[in-house]
């Protein structure tokens, strides 16, 4: 663009364009590239002649006049399944919101019964809820009182998924490794003083160090995985660079602490 945008404004524009691209997926007879070109041309013309970098607030004003990303998709171009959902989510119509929660509650019943159908229903509830959030965004509406009905199915999937991502594969690996005696080479033998305490320390150290290494790996992969993470957690929260820093610091601290305990245990200098 000929007008220069500040970093924040550029990120805002990228997000707007990304939302439009997402909405255009599956839209028949629409050239997404052409739509993006129209958006850029419009914004560029609007900001023509600007000499100083355009701030996020200024860009926000332009985007507000342009309307929500959904406005760029003609209703006739929207896939039939999306039109059907939209009919369940009009103004004061709560049917889609009830359907979201109902699907998830049904999933919970199947889970209690030990059936794998629960996973399908949780997934369906999640996707329906995400569609409801998108529809609300497109229309510039707030979820309002529907929030609890729509966000619960998302939380039911996102929170366990985040837990699994954070726990990572290294914690179970460390646990299995401990149980199987893979770490015998560390020279940690059952001490005469307090075997139970020594074993607990070893277990905590292995799991802590494993978790720390995993978090360091996640922090390193952050830039690659950020978009996927944003997709998963939206609209519960938006992963930011600060979260990556926390992960990095916590990972380094855990790794260091775990390694230090292991080193002490290996040397047999820990009195437990």
């Amino acid at each position, binding site marked *: *663009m*000929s007008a220069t945008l500040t970093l924040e404004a550029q990120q805002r524009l990228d997000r707007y364009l990304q939302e439009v691209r997402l909405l255009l997926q599956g839209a028949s*007879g*629409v050239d997404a590239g*052409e*739509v993006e*070109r*129209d*958006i*850029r*041309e*419009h914004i*560029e*013309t*609007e900001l*023509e002649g600007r000499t100083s970098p355009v701030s996020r607030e200024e860009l926000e004003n332009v985007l507000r*006049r*342009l*309307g*929500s*990303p959904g*406005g*760029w*998709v*003609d209703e*006739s*171009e929207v896939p039939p399944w999306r039109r059907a959902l939209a009919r369940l989510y009009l*103004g*004061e119509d709560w049917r889609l919101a009830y359907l979201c929660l109902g699907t998830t509650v049904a999933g919970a019943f199947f889970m209690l019964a030990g059936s794998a159908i629960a996973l399908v229903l949780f997934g369906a509830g999640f996707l329906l809820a995400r569609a409801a959030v998108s529809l609300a965004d497109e229309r510039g509406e707030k979820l309002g009182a529907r929030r609890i009905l729509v966000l619960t199915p998302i939380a039911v999937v996102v929170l366990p998924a985040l837990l699994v991502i954070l726990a990572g594969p290294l914690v179970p690996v460390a646990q299995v490794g401990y149980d199987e005696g893979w770490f015998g080479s560390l020279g940690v033998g059952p001490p005469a003083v307090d075997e139970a305490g020594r074993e607990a320390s070893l277990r905590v150290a292995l799991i802590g160090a494993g978790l720390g290494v995993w978090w360091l790996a996640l922090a390193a992969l952050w830039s690659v995985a950020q978009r996927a993470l944003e997709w998963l957690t939206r609209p519960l929260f938006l992963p930011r660079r600060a979260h990556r820093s926390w992960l990095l610091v916590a990972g380094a601290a855990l790794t260091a602490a775990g390694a230090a305990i292991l080193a002490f245990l290996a040397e047999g200098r820990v009195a437990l």
Partner: protein
Amino acid sequence: MESDFAANWTTQLRKGLLELCVLNILRDRRLYGYDIVKRLGSLDGLMISEGTVYPLLNRLKRENFVTTTIEESPDGPARKYYELTAAGRRQLEWMNAAWTALVGAVRGLQEGSTS
């Protein structure tokens, strides 16, 4: 609710008239998208989200009512110009006639004439 009803009615009315307005704006001239949007925005009572005009222009293009050409601009970004085709002109004539008839009929109702 009455206010929702009124708001929806107004929105539908504006949406329905948008194509007629765009085709009329292009009747005597070729214009680029931004210019069309601004001209529409200046019309009283036709308050629209600017972003809704472009999908409509693309639809008119697919219907072969308008053609587009991209031209470099000396003092800004390259611009996509829209122009009516012969089919677009015929469509506009038909729509203007239909609109005139409709307005006449509604006005007749408003004035109490039923015949």
